[in-house]
């Protein structure tokens, strides 16, 4: 006989018992010990069928292949650049992944990307030791020029983007800004000074209230009232 001890969207702390019995399966951020399932993080519980998982409310970004992130050049090596990814691990951007144009052997790499330049990149490879390779060869990946970069908790990124990008589209429309959200929590906003400030405030508001529902309406009201 299995018993579930939590409700949907209830806040749990690490070590809290979520369910007793073998009928339930431990999902993301949970673990099983004997017949009990425990939470591993502070977060919101979610039950889908037999799987219990916890949506973390904070926590570090885990580099994943295919993610679009915003990084900063920290060093220039022989055949590429070292990129700070806003995590414990830096990434490597190889020359051949940086541009489609032919680069001569003796060319000065700092002319293409200098130290402290911000870039939008895709993660193309992550090893078990978290060595990361990134690429700039896809559409929309480029060096960042102008605008501002803000940082939010990476766990809140899905909320900022919204379902089918609804939230981010709303902010873009209302503020007239171009916004790029990196999965690592860095966000690039480019637009008029007022628009940028409004977008930044809206995003910070989403970060603060991410665990609440009905956020899109709140953000809409906020952006309408702000101008």
């Amino acid at each position, binding site marked *: 006989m299995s018993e579930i001890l939590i409700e949907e969207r209830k806040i749990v*702390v690490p*070590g809290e018992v979520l369910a007793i019995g073998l009928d339930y399966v431990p999902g993301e951020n949970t673990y099983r010990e004997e017949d009990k399932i425990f939470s591993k*993080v*502070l977060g919101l519980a979610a039950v889908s069928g037999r799987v219990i998982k916890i949506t973390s409310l*904070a*926590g570090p970004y885990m580099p994943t292949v295919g993610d679009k992130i915003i990084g900063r050049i920290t060093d220039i090596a022989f055949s590429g650049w070292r990129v700070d990814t806003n995590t*414990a*691990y830096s990434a490597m951007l190889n020359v051949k992944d940086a541009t489609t144009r032919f680069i001569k052997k003796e060319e000065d790499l700092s002319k293409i990307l200098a130290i402290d330049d911000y870039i939008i990149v895709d993660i193309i490879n992550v090893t078990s030791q978290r060595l990361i390779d990134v690429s700039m060869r896809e559409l929309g990946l480029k060096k960042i020029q102008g605008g501002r970069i803000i940082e939010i908790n990476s766990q809140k990124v899905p909320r900022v983007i919204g379902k089918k990008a609804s939230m981010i589209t709303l902010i873009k429309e209302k503020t007239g800004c171009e916004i790029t959200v990196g999965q690592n929590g860095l966000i690039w906003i480019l637009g008029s000074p007022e628009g940028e400030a409004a977008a930044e405030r809206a995003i910070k508001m989403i970060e603060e209230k991410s665990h609440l529902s009905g956020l899109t309406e709140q953000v809409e009201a906020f952006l309408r009232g702000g101008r």
Partner: protein
Amino acid sequence: MVYKQRLDGRKGDELRPMEAKTKVIPNAQGSASFKIGKTWAIAAVYGPREIYPKFLANPKRGILRCYYNMMPFSGSGERIRPGSNRRSQEIAMVMTKALEPVVDLSQYPNSVVDVFVELPQTDAGTRCAAISAAAMALADAGIPMKDLVSSVAVGMADDKIIADLTYKEEHIYEFNPESLNAVVSDIPLAMIHNTKELTLLQMDGEITKEDLLKALELGQKAIEKVYAVQVKALKENFIEESK
């Protein structure tokens, strides 16, 4: 002479009033403040981040690194020499060992999670307050943890087993003229909530085996009270706002 009534009028198993809060330091990934009586600990967690010096890196898992610091004005008012010393280094080490069993950094090789604990005000039980605050700050930072660790001290002052000693009780022979030859012991404990495993067990002073067992039993109950305060503080931030 038996210690009939505690100096601050508490019952033997009663803890000092506790107050806990998370998200007290916006710059940190996670933070917490934990007050028990006059003792006050503030913990801030940074990371996982790149580890320096590099030779400390462990390619199998991330490491946990604690810092403990009493502020210069934190004690009785006598200025303490600031900075690290033998005592604070030892306490930082026992804190790390108390927290390590629950923190799961297997997904973050070669990185470090730094826990900084500052004590603006102290009145005994600082390592316990520091561990309780650090556990909350780690949970607040979203670091994967098997469980929470709660900590409190128990001990004996003049033949009586009591929980959560103050500085005056640890030095009862100085403050109570009737207890000049009192036997005093101070036993800081830290426990993992679910498994009831002790991750910190130290002792100052003397105690008999029978009394130690009784003290540990009392400690377990006292730690449950600390745990309740920790859980409430962690959840509070989110529940209040949703109303």
